[in-house]
């Protein structure tokens, strides 16, 4: 059994993220929340949803990269996250091929 030598007690996660970085991310998330609420009060028409989702995605990315340590994780973990997003988008987009085209006239 390949076991690490006992006196080598290597902490599995060797990187320690500085507290300041966590606080900066937190601040960014709070600002983002404020921005989201503010942007909703401005009438941007069709772009309201785009802005809202954009801000949410930026916030989400910060949470995933830094709070969840994806930035410091293996490539495999990143592939997992990307895969989840991809299949979610597949479910959304292919379903919408139905809903968006139902009103279209039929082929002749």
């Amino acid at each position, binding site marked *: 059994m*390949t076991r690490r030598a006992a006196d080598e007690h290597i902490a599995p996660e060797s990187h320690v993220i500085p507290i300041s970085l966590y606080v900066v991310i*937190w601040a960014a998330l709070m600002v983002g929340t404020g921005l989201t609420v503010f942007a909703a009060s401005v009438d941007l028409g069709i772009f309201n949803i785009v802005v809202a989702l954009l801000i949410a995605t930026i916030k989400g990315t910060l949470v995933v990269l830094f709070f969840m340590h994806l930035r410091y994780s293996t490539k495999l973990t990143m592939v997992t996250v990307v895969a989840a997003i991809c299949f979610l988008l597949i479910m959304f987009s292919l379903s919408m091929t139905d809903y968006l085209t139902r009103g279209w006239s039929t082929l002749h």
Partner: protein
Amino acid sequence: MDLQVAEHALQHHFADMEQQQETSTFGMWMFLLTEIMFFGGLFCAYLVYRSSYYEAFVEGSQKMNIWLGATNTAVLICSSLTMALGVRAAQTGKKKLMVVLLLITILFGLGFLGIKGVEYHEHWENHEFPGPNFHFQTIDKTPPVDPQHTEIYFSLYWAMTGLHALHMIIGVGLVTWIILGGLAGAYTPAYFTPVEVVGLYWHFVDLVWIYLFPLLYLISKKHGGG
């Protein structure tokens, strides 16, 4: 002492702690992938109905209390900070600090659930729970444009936030478990995987809310509620 804890925690089918830690973390990411798809079904339903019945969704969304929703968003973000710092405390061997930070995390979580409870109560009183007792009144008392589909909006609201709240409750339970383990000295810089893994779960629950808030509360510029 650290080493003994780590060695005791090493499961027999792993070659070493590093393999165990990487495997456990990967396992939790995989589980979160399934959670993304689980919530994803509801998001898909939301997407379909919102795109087809936008006006009805706008009217429903206007009955949401944006300030409570925004507060809850802030509460969760703060809880993520304390959670991340708590994991860091475990990683650097600061047991007491970890316990304190995780306790604060739980308080934030309970705060979120409390605010949610207040909102639910109000929606319930307003007959905004779908079913035979559903009766929708717009925010400015004008006739609703499409009450049938506003009921669908509320179905999705209750389903999505309800599922999210359930995950919060489970999260609070998991963090409690970690605190108990921490108090008993189970975690050291050489072995704090359970803390890290529960942290991942907690952040995920925060992440879901980051999307729920704008999608459910902020659909249109004409926001009211209070």
